[in-house]
């Protein structure tokens, strides 16, 4: 069930209500039941997969723990490495099978056709289980943490199963670290029933998340889809606009999910990690990745980039590690060369940024550029935003060919007259809808600006304000969602973009 569905509006209060009413010792079991129910609402068979992944990583953890105690020698270390390797193989194997089979098969058949050989036939259709990339990484992270000794192996299978399947963050993150989440789940009995600030704070985050998803993301999606799905009909202005709105759409879509997840968990007394920190205010691509999908980028940093050597090696190897990490990240996002290209672009940005950084600083010093002024910082933000948007074209386009087609038209089909001939109101959103989108983008900008400047999320910011202002904002958000949300028979609830991962 989607977070912005009526089903979830019924499911969540029931889960929370029972959670607080049942004996404390049963809380984690109830959450486990609710999490599996939540996941099976997509497809009951998915439960088998997540259960399999849970079991494999649980057993791996126990084995690692046992080996560490039973065989503390070098021999034991080798066995531990084999356990980790086997665990990785099984889980990544499942992930690759479900997510990349078609991609692998299509590329193989392409090579075979070039060589003049017969293509390999697909024997059956494979349905991609929602959220598989997220919980697989979360479970693998646990295994590696146990191997590294940073967390104890969880002995209670059900608590561990809850860690893997905890419903607020199950299908689209944040990808939690075992150190943070397992320890909280182990003390779920101690959580206070009534904590006014915790519950209202969580509710505010959920409300803000729903606003971002239902008012902004789903509305922007209409224009983006209209233009991108028929890109050959449009010129530069429409394509640039659609790309920028896609940047808004994917940010609001993804950040909203995380926001709702964090808020829902907060209500239940569990703190999930922040996943987005005003990424479009970043002043460099490197900073962008410290603010965007923080849980995934930090996962790749800790479990791929640093094991490869990180930046503590030669420049060439450092750049290689960067590229590998971002290429894999791209592939994680989707089984398509366009996603790989997107990831690769971000890697290239950082390599070039690192290479040209000193050169840029020398030139600026030579020209006495004031790096502390507003316009310099604004320029950095705009350039970063531009680079990120350029890459988003590859993310959104259906294929590499389409991405290049779009970029080609942006460069060659300059059409500024559409800014004044009302064409922009014929891209799926009429005048009223465009105005609603514009106002809601202003709201988003203001909220993110507050977060950027103060570090405070909306709930913390509102807590400091006077009552009438707090309530005005809450009622505005609530009725903004109820009235302007893209739901109901006239709109179809657009699934969260990252569900395909």
């Amino acid at each position, binding site marked *: 069930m989607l977070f912005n569905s*009526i089903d979830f509006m019924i499911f969540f209060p029931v889960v929370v209500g029972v959670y607080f009413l049942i004996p404390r010792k049963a809380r984690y079991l109830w959450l486990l039941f609710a999490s599996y129910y939540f996941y099976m609402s997509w497809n009951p068979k998915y439960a088998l997969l997540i259960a399999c992944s849970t079991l494999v990583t649980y057993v791996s953890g126990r084995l690692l723990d046992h080996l560490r105690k039973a065989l503390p020698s070098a021999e034991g270390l080798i066995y531990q490495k084999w356990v980790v390797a086997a665990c990785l193989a099984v889980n990544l194997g499942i992930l690759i099978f479900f997510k990349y089979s078609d991609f692998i098969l299509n590329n193989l058949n392409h090579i075979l056709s070039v060589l003049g050989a017969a293509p390999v036939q697909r024997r059956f259709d494979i349905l991609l289980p929602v959220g598989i990339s997220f919980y697989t990484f979360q479970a693998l992270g646990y295994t590696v943490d146990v191997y590294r000794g940073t967390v104890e192996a969880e002995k209670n299978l059900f608590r561990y199963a809850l860690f893997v399947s905890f419903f607020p963050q199950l299908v689209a993150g944040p990808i939690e670290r075992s150190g943070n989440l397992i320890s909280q789940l182990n003390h779920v009995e101690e959580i206070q029933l009534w904590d006014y600030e915790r519950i209202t704070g969580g509710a505010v985050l959920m409300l803000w998340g729903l606003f971002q998803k239902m008012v902004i993301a789903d509305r922007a999606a209409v224009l983006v889809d209209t233009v991108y799905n028929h890109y050959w009909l449009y010129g530069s202005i429409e394509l640039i606009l659609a790309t920028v709105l896609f940047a808004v759409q994917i940010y609001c879509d993804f950040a909203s999910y995380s926001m709702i997840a964090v808020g829902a968990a907060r209500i239940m007394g569990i703190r999930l990690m922040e996943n987005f920190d005003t990424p479009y205010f970043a002043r460099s691509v490197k900073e962008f990745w410290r603010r965007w999908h923080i849980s995934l980028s930090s996962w790749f940093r800790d479990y791929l980039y640093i094991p490869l050597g990180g930046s503590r090696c030669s420049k060439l190897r450092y750049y290689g590690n960067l590229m590998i990490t971002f290429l894999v990240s791209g592939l994680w996002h989707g089984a398509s060369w366009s996603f790989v290209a997107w990831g690769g672009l971000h890697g290239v940005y950082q390599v070039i940024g690192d290479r040209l950084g000193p050169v840029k600083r020398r030139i600026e010093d030579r020209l006495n550029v004031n790096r502390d002024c507003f316009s310099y910082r604004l320029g950095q933000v705009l350039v970063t935003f531009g680079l990120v948007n350029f890459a988003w074209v590859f993310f959104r386009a259906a294929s590499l060919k389409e991405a290049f087609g779009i970029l080609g038209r942006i460069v060659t089909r300059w059409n500024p007259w559409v800014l004044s001939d009302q064409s922009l109101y014929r891209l799926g959103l009429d005048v009223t809808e465009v105005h609603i989108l514009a106002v809601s983008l202003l709201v988003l900008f203001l909220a993110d600006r507050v977060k950027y400047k103060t570090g405070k999320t909306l709930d913390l910011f509102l807590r400091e304000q006077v009552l009438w202002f707090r*309530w005005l904002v809450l009622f505005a958000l609530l009725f903004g969602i109820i009235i*302007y949300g893209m739901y*109901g028979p006239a709109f179809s609830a657009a699934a969260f973009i990252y569900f395909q991962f």
Partner: protein
Amino acid sequence: MIRKSVKIIAFFLILSLLLLRFHQVFRFKFNDGIYGLEQFYEEDENSLDAIFFGSSHMYVNVNTSVLWAEYGIAGYDLGGSEQPIWNSYYYVKEALKTQKPSVLVLDCFTACRTGDYVDESRIIKNTYGMKLSRDKIDAVKASSPESGRLGYLLEYPTYHGRYGDLSRSDYRRFADTDFIWSNTWKGQYLHTSAYNQPQPEPEEVTETAKLDEINEAYLRGIIELAQEAGIPILLMVVPYVADAEETMCYNRISEIAKEYGEGVDFVNFNPHCEAIGLDFSLDYADPCHMNYRGSEKFTRYLAEYLKARYELADHRGEAAYRSYDSMAQYYGRFVYNDQIRKTAELPDYLAKLWIPDYVTVFFVKGDYKNMSNYNEVRDLLAGYGISLDEAGGDAVWVLRDGTLLFASGGDAEYCWHQEVGRYDVLTVQSEQGESPEITPRVLLNDSPYSKVNDGLNILTYDLMGEGLVECAGFAIVDGTMEMGKR
């Protein structure tokens, strides 16, 4: 702790009030379904003599004003647009919770429809008027596919997106239309236009055709509801151009009615068109729906039929039925306004305007002083207190009940305005015309009205019905004012 509790209670209280207002403004206000049932709930218990159910074939063609004014029958048209028989079933159930009429009447047009659910707007029209109850939930379940049911039950997912369509009528309790007057409406829906179609030849069709299983089940359900309540039921077919297949279905319904015996009657009124006096070229607004003239004829015929067979009292004069008297009054005005619109000749037109509750704006433009029939027109208008001789150039007069409210006289510039009805404003102001002369500009709210630029315009506003009757124009052509309306 107490402060927090008070804050929480206050928050939810304000939230509830805002949600209620949101619901009131945004909800659908269709008068071909929702309003009919909502107003029905306001009728006094056990006050109705005859309740009519069905689709627009019923509520357009059964004239509750004529039933009351000429027979004293307190009737109610309780139907919905393209109302499927399963919705009629739940409407009957609702009606019987508060009413025990002398007869229930069901038009069987939609009992013969085939196919599954109707479109979304009809699902809304035929369920949203129901009060929340087990029956409403069942009605929604019967009316809609499973995937959309929750939206129809909660309602707001279907109407929240109306922010671009909201109008003045959304902020009122009932919509502003020509034929809904406060709470006196009784479900009827009136057309004024005429659709010229050939008179159908009566065709003898004796075969029967099966009804859809679900339709027959609900039809029988309706009959059984009536029997359980001890109320006779008449299944009827309102006259329209029915084809042979539909007639075969109606023959089947006749058979079903006979199965139940006493208390269940069936009449297909199609063969009765000649007796009713229906002229298909004048009495219909479209192939299936009569205009008000046709509905009057049919309703008189139906009323005679009902009075002959069922115990229907004459409630005229009873204090409890004042709303019906009001309805008859409004209906009379509705018909009168239509007659005005159909009046073409100036003398007859002027004669019809001389009744209370009209605000009439006369404005002359162009070279009327030199028209060949100036004296004739001047004398005609003088009878209404309008002096063309005293007017300097283009001029305007506003009258109500013979009292002059405003006259531009020889004023170079003027601006007069007055609220008419509860929500409208009439404005008369001067503006620079094409010639150097000042010319009158007449607006109702923000819409300007003027039928002719050279001649006499007459704008009439009906205070009773709170709406514009029309803006008529009598043009000056070749120096003479035409007596015929443009």
